[in-house]
């Protein structure tokens, strides 16, 4: 690929175009979304082994999700009585850097657990539907709580504010809006 019409642009303009980035990372969420989309279309094989192995894994995954949810509720209620700074300092007992690292680890654990739960939805077993719904509700509750904390942490961040507004509008709305059922979780 060679340009055949370079004469009309100046050196400065060519340099400006050449300096534009050629790559940008869209983030890990898109990768997981695309892998799920391909799996649903049968273009990728499930990565969790044969179905008879996945059945016990489903129970383990759901149980883990519920445990994470319960732990999140307990920790959230405890943290809710403190300011963000105090809570993080107490939780980590050390520095803000360690608190930030804890957020990173918790975020990774959250996404990993959610991805594991999502993988089980493809089994389509109605007997586990309530557990899957509970896991989904736990994930949404955690997400909502996290966004609230993020807004406290950075009250001027327009992205955080927009996400909070969007989530809370759907969160508090009844079944008559957006098809979102009434939540049973009282968070923080």
């Amino acid at each position, binding site marked *: 690929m060679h340009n055949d*019409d370079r004469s009309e642009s100046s050196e400065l303009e060519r340099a400006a175009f050449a300096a534009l980035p050629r790559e940008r990372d869209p983030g890990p969420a*898109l990768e997981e979304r695309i892998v799920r989309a391909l799996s649903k279309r049968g273009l990728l094989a499930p990565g969790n082994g044969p179905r008879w192995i996945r059945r016990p894994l489903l129970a383990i995954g759901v149980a883990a999700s519920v445990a994470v949810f319960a732990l999140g509720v307990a920790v959230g209620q405890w943290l809710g009585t403190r300011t963000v700074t105090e809570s993080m300092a107490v939780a980590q007992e050390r520095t803000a850097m360690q608190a930030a690292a804890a957020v990173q680890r918790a975020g990774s654990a959250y996404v990993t657990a959610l991805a594991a739960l999502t993988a089980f939805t493809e089994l389509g077993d109605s007997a586990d539907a309530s557990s899957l719904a509970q896991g989904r509700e736990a994930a949404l509750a955690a997400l909502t709580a996290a966004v609230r904390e993020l807004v406290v942490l950075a009250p001027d961040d327009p992205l955080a504010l927009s996400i909070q507004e969007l989530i809370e509008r759907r969160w508090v709305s009844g079944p008559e809006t957006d098809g979102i059922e009434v939540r049973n979780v009282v968070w923080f």
Partner: protein
Amino acid sequence: MLADRVWRERDEEAFRVLYRRHTPALYQFALRLVGGNTFDAEDVVQQAWIHAAEGLGAFRWESAFSTWLHGIVLNLCRALFRRADRRWIELKEDSVALAPRQNHDQLDLEAALATLPPGYRTVVILHDVEGFTHEQIAARLEISANTSKSQLSRGRQVLRSLLRPEAVSR
């Protein structure tokens, strides 16, 4: 070869390697074409990988694979423009309204590109950023090389008016 493993074995790990190798460039390309809309760019990249996974069996070489992926992204962006009833390459030159001219000083090249009408933006990106010739652009966009040249010339003119309005004599 990774593409073969994805195509023949539906190998998720092989796909992830392919994905991580090519997606940053595809995403940047798509993001630029759709004018910086991250939601559109993500959708385009997702659809591109679905199309690619469905037709992977035909590809054997990595370089051709990358070019092929970019072609898919380009076509999906064009379809997006058409679905959204946005201005596309068929527009006559004199029918194109210039982008808003306020806040010129704050516009950098990336932002200025995003404000171009999609037809101009696509040709400018393909030619000045990606390095395609007018003949290659004409083949990919199903237009004539002369149309490509006129779109590029007009697109550059609009860009200059956005970036350095005082330097453009009209």
